[in-house]
């Protein structure tokens, strides 16, 4: 059974931004059946990629640390959905999901984490520094908040290009307390730049819960200080994320300026690979695990009769097999040649 299509993309663009402010807004923009299955597959692909990274880490294949995003897939996938190929996306060290949502090849991503020459950055960047310029993935930044002024600069380029491009900046709740965050929001608003500030509020900055570091948990409140259009959504509901982001993207394309989108979510794992995350109350973790974005969306697609459990399991199994095969190929790839590649790329 299909849902009624209420408002094609075109009419959503004309909808006042205030509509998105209302909250979940499932009806803000239409998604086709194929779109919906695509969202599910994309989230499953990220989940299986991250689970494979975990296994590969235990096998000693991942060099340095890695920051996994299981539980936050709906944000990457839902927010990326309304973007065009020529838009700019910047993200954080917990950035595998953002890259995969924009179509980065698993094998090149694994190879980067494994320090191999076939990595997206030829083994020079690693887990915290994935970039794929061809896909508008301008970079994952290892310093909290550092990608935000860069995203503002990409927004400036977009504005001056005059082709309706936008710049999307993903960052976490921790970044909301760093100076670069405040400078970025202020500048983007004063210059009316087409920037989407997508805040992934997973409640923990490294090992500390938000209530110890920030005077409130609803980070959408930060936007008011900059008179910025803002919306808070359930970041574990992929369609809610899409419905909030799509009108904001359309608004930005039309010169309406930036929007702050707080996505309330949770990471299933610790901050980084050495963190067992024992500091989180069990009941909090259990409650969020029940709200796993893949479980929620599977139920939704079943309700819509777009997917059976068997089909959903098959999608995950296929993604798992693809991740395993990609990791295997990546692990067999050659190391960078230390005599040839080591110094060459510092300057042109």
């Amino acid at each position, binding site marked *: 059974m299909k849902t009624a299509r209420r408002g094609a993309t075109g009419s959503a663009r004309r909808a006042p931004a205030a509509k998105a402010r209302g909250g979940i807004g499932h009806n803000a923009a239409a998604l086709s059946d194929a779109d919906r299955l695509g969202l599910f597959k994309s989230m499953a692909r990220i989940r299986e990629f991250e689970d494979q990274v975990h296994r590969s880490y235990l096998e000693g294949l991942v060099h340095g640390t890695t920051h996994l995003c299981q539980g936050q897939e709906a944000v990457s996938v839902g927010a990326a959905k309304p973007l065009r190929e020529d838009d700019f996306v*910047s993200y954080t060290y917990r950035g595998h999901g953002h890259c995969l949502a924009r179509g980065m090849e698993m094998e090149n991503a694994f190879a980067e984490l494994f320090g191999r020459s076939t990595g997206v950055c030829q083994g*020079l960047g690693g887990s915290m520094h994935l970039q794929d310029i061809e896909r508008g993935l301008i*970079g994952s930044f290892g310093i909290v908040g*550092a990608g935000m002024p860069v995203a503002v600069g990409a927004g400036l380029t977009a504005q001056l290009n005059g082709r309706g491009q936008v710049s999307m900046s993903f960052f976490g709740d921790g970044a909301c307390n760093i100076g670069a965050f405040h*400078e*970025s929001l202020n*500048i983007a608003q004063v210059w009316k730049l087409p920037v989407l500030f997508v805040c992934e509020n997973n409640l923990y900055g490294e090992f500390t819960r938000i209530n110890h570091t920030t005077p409130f948990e609803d980070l959408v409140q930060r936007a008011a200080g900059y008179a910025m259009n803002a919306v808070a959504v359930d970041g574990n509901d992929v369609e809610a994320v899409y419905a909030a982001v799509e009108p904001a993207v359309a608004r930005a394309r039309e010169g309406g300026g930036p929007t702050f989108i707080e996505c309330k979510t949770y990471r299933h794992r610790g901050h980084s690979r050495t963190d067992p995350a024992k500091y989180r109350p069990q009941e909090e973790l259990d409650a969020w695990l029940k709200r796993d974005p893949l479980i929620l969306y599977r139920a939704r697609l079943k309700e819509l009769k777009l997917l059976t459990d068997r089909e959903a399991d098959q999608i995950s199994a296929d993604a798992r097999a693809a991740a395993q095969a990609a990791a295997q190929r990546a692990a067999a790839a050659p190391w960078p040649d230390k005599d040839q590649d080591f110094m060459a790329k*510092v*300057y042109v």
Partner: protein
Amino acid sequence: METTYREALRQALDDAMTADSAITLLGEEVGRYGGAYGVTKGLLEKFGKERVIDAPISEAGIVGAAVGAAMTGLRPVAELMYVDFIGLAMDQVANQAAKIRYMFGGQIGVPMVLRAPCGTGRSGGAQHSQSLEAWILHMPGLRLAMPGTVSDAYHLLRAALRLPDPVVFIEHKALYVRKGELDTQRMDAPWGRAIMRRGGRDATIVAYSRMVHRALEAAEALAADGISAEVIDLRTLNPLDMETVSASVARTGRALVASEGHLTGGAAAEIAAQIQEACFDWLEEPILRLAAEDVPVPVSPALEAASVPTAESIARTVRRMVHR
């Protein structure tokens, strides 16, 4: 034609912006006010507010925006009102601009210029008078220009605006009113090459930025006493043209490095070390450094002037090196 260092910089921006529509200026007071030191005066009127952008007082935001704009197709020129403010933007300079090409596997560069004035001479005090080039020199991935002459102010800035990598372009604020010859069609030497400003036999004085003029004054005074000092102007510290420096020191056998940055861990120390490695067999005397005292820059004109090398202290040191 004769013009000033300030006007040469303004002319370079004007000509470069005319030639390349991707060049965009951003910074505090660069537009309506025309720049704290007047370098960007008139450019807003000529190129419009889309290309000459007044920014809030947000150094990290300004430099970061320049990084992002450079990564995505613009060629931004960000201005810091004083190089002393670079600490506020240092993450963007050292962790982003410097590293983006390398850590992302060479997919993309950051073709931006970060302009900032440095130096003593205006009683600016401890937080508005520093010479922080060592901070930049230390970081792979950043080009560093420090023009001392009117001609270089123009030509090095034009060259910086054609490079594929980030350039920190440090101007000396005491030089803004200095006059000199400018031929916009002729550059003294290519980008990245040092230049001999005065030939000599007995000692080499290596300098850059304002110290070039103090070294030349010193050489003039020494000549009156029959001491022949050669003056090398580095022009850029990254690239650092050790070929020209070494060729000179190999001839004179003596080297003095003069810098307005602090002595300890400073640019002069790096240059001296490189001379030692390249020229040990030719050296008649230990390499000496003259640099700013290791104190915050004092305001009182008497103390401020005493805290950095002067033509007199350079000449005195060279006399010591040649034992005359």
